[in-house]
């Protein structure tokens, strides 16, 4: 049975290793899609709808076409069709410079018949609201209802009850590198696309289908990628437009989204509203849970969340609907549905615990069946100093009050089949590892190098890793669901092991030893039964002559594991005169199985916590009900955490087993709930809406006083 071996045997795996692309990134040498420039390349721009709802009556592109420097203009919507959200694509141009392209889209004249819009959930759910989806009976989807146990009997058994409404705002992904592509046709049958994507092969197949080409005649390249968080799996309208403009003009076309478009059309995390009534028994068991909830994913559905979350309730009824609004489609965003669910559930848990007069940590211990998290509670509580917590919320003295809270999460991250990889040993001693995955910033390039180097007794920097290119024809899945490392690692390991075996077979006669007695040292190969027999890696590889060794790998179920529990503790400080919230410290205890690179695993936890922090304290999409516009489609009023907001983060890699589990997503889940509970513990007033901004805190404090 394959295994990653014991920690004591590992030279590299599980250690803290600097990412291989780090230097290129900080010196600007790393080329992102934005940095790609091709000979004679044109610049693409898209004309987008200013209004949230309208029928297109006509598009006049003649003035744009006549502008000197414009090489192609294409419509992106048919006359008579409806525009259903601000930012929806109308037409695209390609021009010799970006400035000309910008001018050109303003010369396209669009005749619109405006329709009534609804951009907020309240407006969409109001009586007499204009219906904005033809395929639904109203602006609400059919309810998704789940029932378990006997709700009435559950409430009868409850000693305490809480009834509350929890809400989270729509968040956008804010990829630092906006969505976009550089498309170039070699000839009518061969297309190359540099794409800012999380899925090189998915994008390749999409382009091939869209342009009716054989898949192997489309090459997609993503050498470095500036953030996707779930929003970058397909070319989108902008990708198809870039390739079409390139096809028509016969030139390469670069088309990257503006920051405004990125907010409007490139995905978002849906909102969540939960009206919950829940009960617990005197001895602290969750016993009844009745929830009616909704969320909006814009014009699409997909506003899902789990309720209840993580903790088990035997008697329940839940009813969820999607609410359609005239706003851009939701897309998967880092642990879709989970942070919303965790915030509502962990807030509810604290409210119930308080009614029971129970320490919220104890209350969770009673209701949490997950053994990993049980152990994490102990560790996290020690690390944050849970004993320092206010036993009575808001009981601290002074203007600035501190408090502590916790939240929990669960994720899969077990990976799956579908990756092909090749490890090649050349006679000069060089080693190549190739697979069609992509490094979206998580460090999988380095992970691959570590695995191969461990197997072959080399250093990670000795391994030449190629990812983010479909041309070698070694597919891998998209980087979503925290699946990349658990999907890729087993295949890379088996490929490296197979290559090593081949090399052993070639040099066993030279060392006059059976193949089974050969081992790798550090840059050497030796005979385990007679240590005097040893040769350097270079000498061994030199035996290969003109024939390189090149071996594929296989998926191995035993090398990975699904399931990543996590818990986080937050300490906050609230200025009760200004409402200013400062997060002092987050302790993130994250179940992650075998951390192949401990350094980048910690980085992922840090990044997840910061993203969760943004959702908790700052981020919110503001839709204006009257004009139908998003009012903060920028980075001035759509506020993401900066250095002043980021607290001390204690990332604890909770590695309880030696199988690989992905943790790209789960560290952002428990953060908002932990912070919300800490705010309550600090000031004795509960904020049930994310983000927890100073206006909400101050308003709640005033209401409490009154």
């Amino acid at each position, binding site marked *: 049975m394959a295994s990653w071996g014991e920690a004591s045997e590992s030279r590299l795996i599980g250690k803290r290793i600097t990412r291989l692309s780090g230097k290129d990134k900080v010196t600007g040498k790393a080329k992102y899609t934005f940095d790609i420039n091709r000979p004679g390349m044109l610049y693409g721009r898209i004309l987008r709808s*200013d209004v949230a709802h309208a029928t297109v009556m006509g598009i006049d592109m003649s003035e744009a076409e006549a502008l000197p420097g414009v090489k192609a203009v294409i419509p992106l919507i048919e006359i008579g069709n409806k525009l259903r959200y601000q930012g929806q694509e109308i037409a695209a141009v390609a021009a010799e410079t970006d400035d000309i392209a910008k001018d050109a889209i303003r010369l396209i004249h669009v005749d619109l018949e405006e329709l009534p819009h609804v951009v907020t959930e309240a407006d969409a759910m109001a009586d007499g609201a204009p219906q904005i989806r033809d395929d639904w009976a109203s602006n609400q989807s059919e309810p998704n209802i789940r029932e378990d146990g006997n709700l009435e009997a559950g409430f009868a058994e409850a000693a305490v009850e809480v009834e509350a409404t929890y809400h989270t705002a729509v968040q956008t992904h804010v990829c630092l590198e906006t969505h976009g592509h550089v498309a170039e046709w070699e000839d009518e049958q061969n297309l190359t696309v540099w794409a800012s994507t999380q899925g090189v092969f998915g994008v390749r197949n999409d382009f091939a289908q869209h342009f009716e080409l054989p898949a192997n005649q489309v090459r997609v390249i993503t050498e470095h990628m500036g953030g996707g968080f779930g929003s970058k799996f397909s070319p989108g309208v902008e990708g198809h437009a870039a390739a079409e403009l390139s096809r028509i003009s016969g030139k390469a076309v670069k088309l990257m989204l503006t920051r405004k478009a990125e907010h409007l059309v490139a995905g978002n995390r849906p909102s969540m509203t939960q009206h919950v009534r829940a009960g617990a028994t005197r001895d602290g068991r969750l016993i009844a849970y009745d929830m009616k909830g909704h969320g909006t994913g814009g014009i699409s559905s997909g506003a899902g969340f789990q309720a209840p979350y993580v903790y088990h309730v035997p008697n329940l009824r839940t009813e969820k609907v999607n609410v359609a609004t005239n706003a851009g489609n939701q897309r998967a965003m880092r642990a879709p549905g989970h942070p919303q669910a965790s915030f509502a559930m962990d807030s509810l848990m604290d409210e119930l615990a308080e009614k029971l007069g129970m320490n919220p940590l104890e209350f969770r211990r009673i209701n949490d069946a997950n053994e990993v998290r049980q152990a994490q509670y102990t560790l996290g509580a020690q690390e944050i100093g849970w004993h320092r917590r206010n036993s009575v919320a808001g009981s601290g003295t002074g203007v600035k009050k501190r408090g502590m809270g916790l939240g929990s999460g669960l994720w899969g991250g077990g990976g799956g089949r579908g990756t092909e990889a090749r490890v090649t040993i050349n006679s000069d001693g060089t080693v190549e590892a190739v697979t069609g995955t992509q490094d979206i910033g998580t460090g999988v390039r380095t992970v691959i190098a570590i695995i191969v180097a461990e197997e072959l007794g080399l250093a990670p920097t000795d391994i030449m890793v190629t990812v983010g290119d479909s041309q070698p024809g070694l597919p891998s899945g998209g980087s979503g669901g925290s699946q990349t490392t658990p999907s890729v690692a087993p295949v890379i390991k088996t490929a490296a092991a197979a290559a090593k075996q081949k090399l052993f077979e070639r040099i066993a006669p030279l060392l006059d030893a059976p193949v089974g007695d050969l081992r790798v040292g550090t840059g050497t190969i030796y005979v385990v039964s007679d240590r005097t027999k040893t040769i350097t890696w270079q000498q061994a590889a030199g035996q290969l002559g003109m024939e390189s060794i090149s071996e594929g790998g296989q998926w191995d179920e035993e090398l990975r594991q699904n399931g990543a529990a996590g818990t986080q503790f937050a300490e906050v400080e609230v200025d009760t*005169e*200004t*409402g*200013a919230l400062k997060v002092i410290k987050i302790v993130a205890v994250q179940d992650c199985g075998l951390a192949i690179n401990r350094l980048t695993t910690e980085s992922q936890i840090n990044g997840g916590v910061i993203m969760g922090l943004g959702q908790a304290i*700052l981020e919110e999409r*503001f839709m*204006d*009900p*009257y*004009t139908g*516009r998003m*009012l*903060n489609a920028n980075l*001035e*009023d759509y*506020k993401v*955490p*900066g*250095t*002043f*907001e980021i607290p001390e983060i204690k990332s604890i890699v909770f590695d309880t087993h030696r199988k690989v589990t992905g943790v790209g997503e789960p560290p952002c889940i428990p953060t908002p709930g932990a912070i919300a509970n800490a705010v309550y513990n600090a000031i004795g007033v509960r904020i049930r809406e994310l983000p927890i*901004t*100073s*206006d*909400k805190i*101050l*308003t709640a404090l*005033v209401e409490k006083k009154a």
Partner: protein
Amino acid sequence: MEKFSYINATSLEQVTSLLSESAWGEVMLIAGGTDLLAELKEYIETPKTLVNLKTLPGMDSITADASGLKIGALATVADIARHSTIQHHYTVLAQAAASVATPQIRNVGTIGGNLCQRPRCWYYRDETINCLKKGGDTCYAVDGLSKYHAILGGDPVYIVHPSDLAPALIALGASVKIVGPEGEKTMSLEEFFTLPATNPFRENVLEPNEIVVEVTVPAAKANTKSFYLKAREKGAPDFALSSVAGVFEMDGQTCKTASIVLGGVAPAPWRSKEAEAALTGKMIDESVSTQAGADAVKDAQPLNDNAYKVTLTQNLISRAAMMAAS
């Protein structure tokens, strides 16, 4: 942005004559450009000509002597923030300057531009929304989303003035020197700013052919304490939700005179005569400082989403007063 021609200024006469020859907005002045560039890129302004003021000699100096401060309009926000005399004797101004935006913006943004910057209102900054300030007939903040809008002096345009330097300078009694085709004039900075009831389209009294060239601040009095308290949602960069510039002439715990000017809550820097009256001649304690805060906001008229600013402003004023007494 639209195409424009770019002229390097050689003299103030040339600048005012260029301005005089054109209609409002056709010729615009650029120094640091940190505000104007965004307005051009968003098509909020579409001038035909930009006049670069940075080529004017000697307009970026800061001099401090017994008569007070003279700050050229081209002095950068960073220069003001790090000026040691300003830090020690005009603390409120150094603190306000240090709170502006980011180091990059402070390094190029000028005091002249900071005082003349346009509103950050999200309706105003959206090219496709023709709001009252841009000549339309509606201030959308009245019925729309108004979290960052005015609670004082709004009618009929509920923008807030974004400058951090202005409240500090007004609290210090600053004047502004303006040059036009007829020559130069000096006015108090407080009178420089106007409310929308007077002119909904502009935030100050500058005529189309006038330019701010210098800001002067009278010498700091002895026993003066001053503070700039700025509440914001994000450490940086962020504009004020509410800010208080307080200059207090103290005799022990007793306040001889107080200047209290608010930012982020009104379409112009807002001098709170009520707060000043509540503090002047008083021994400052918690009840006096609380009263000063309450008096300052007693006429506040919040919109749908900004009632929190009333409490916030009240508390910031009380805090500043208590700091003066401590």
